């Protein structure tokens, strides 16, 4: 296995996540695309951890931290989407234009 395979796979997943964030209209699906980007970053971290044969497994541990932060992010994000839906009867990001005159 060579490291470039993993980096390119991570780049592909990350690019798909960016595409999802930019093109999705429903707020829940935007959060779903963010999860895809985080998964891509995790693949890179673990691959580089194996690449440098890290003695203290720093890459794996930071992947674990990202998993924990992603769980927190989903909890908060869905709570905000829920609140917006309750107040505006809609979870579409292009209809949240209260700040526009």
């Amino acid at each position, binding site marked *: *296995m*060579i*490291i*470039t395979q993993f*980096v*390119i*796979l991570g*780049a*592909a*997943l*990350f*690019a*798909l*996540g*960016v*595409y999802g964030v*930019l*093109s*999705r*209209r*429903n707020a*829940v699906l935007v*959060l*779903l*695309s963010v*999860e*895809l980007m985080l998964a891509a970053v*995790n*693949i890179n971290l*673990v*691959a580089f*951890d*194996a*690449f440098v*044969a890290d003695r*203290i*497994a*720093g890459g*794996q*541990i930071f*992947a674990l*931290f990202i*998993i*924990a*932060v*992603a*769980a*927190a*992010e*989903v909890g*908060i994000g*869905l*709570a*905000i*989407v*829920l*609140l917006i839906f*309750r107040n505006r009867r809609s*979870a*579409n990001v292009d209809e949240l234009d209260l700040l526009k005159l």
Partner: protein
Amino acid sequence: MVAVTAGDWFSTPENYVFLAIALPLVFAGWRVVTSSNVVHAVLYLVGALGGSAALFLLLGAEFVAWAVVLVYIGAVVVLFLFGIMITRAPIGVEVELSHPLRVRISAALVSGALFVLIAIAALTAFGSESIPEAEVTRTADIGQSIFERFVIPFEVVSVVLLAALVGGIVIARRDPSPEEIAAGKETL
């Protein structure tokens, strides 16, 4: 730019295992961002995360792999399904889930440029340097490392999780209206 020979990409059996995992992984990721059914998108995310867990096993990172299965597939995806049910996101085929074609083309251009940029940078920087024979990382070593070298970040993450837990409850909780308080019905 370092010339990459085909042998490096396809020479060992591990490369074929990698491809067998990576191609469905990218397909699942593609369906996550294009599926016109919300529930299908979430289920394809399960496939993508399962593929990444399989890659972690291939790299010898067993604990991270099972953490992904437990935390992501077990908890986060269920949370997403709850979010979809509660916000009554249109379940079933729905064309309005994405922005119009004009926006989607711009998004595809941006993400495609990003992918090409990272791919060229990776090929230039690493070429065909191979990953050393992966030895399985023992969970005991990970625990040792977390509680010695990374104990401060670990504690910070635990506080972040607690704050997110409290914040999620505070944000999502429905405040009772003044009439309900007057009537003594302040329960959720």
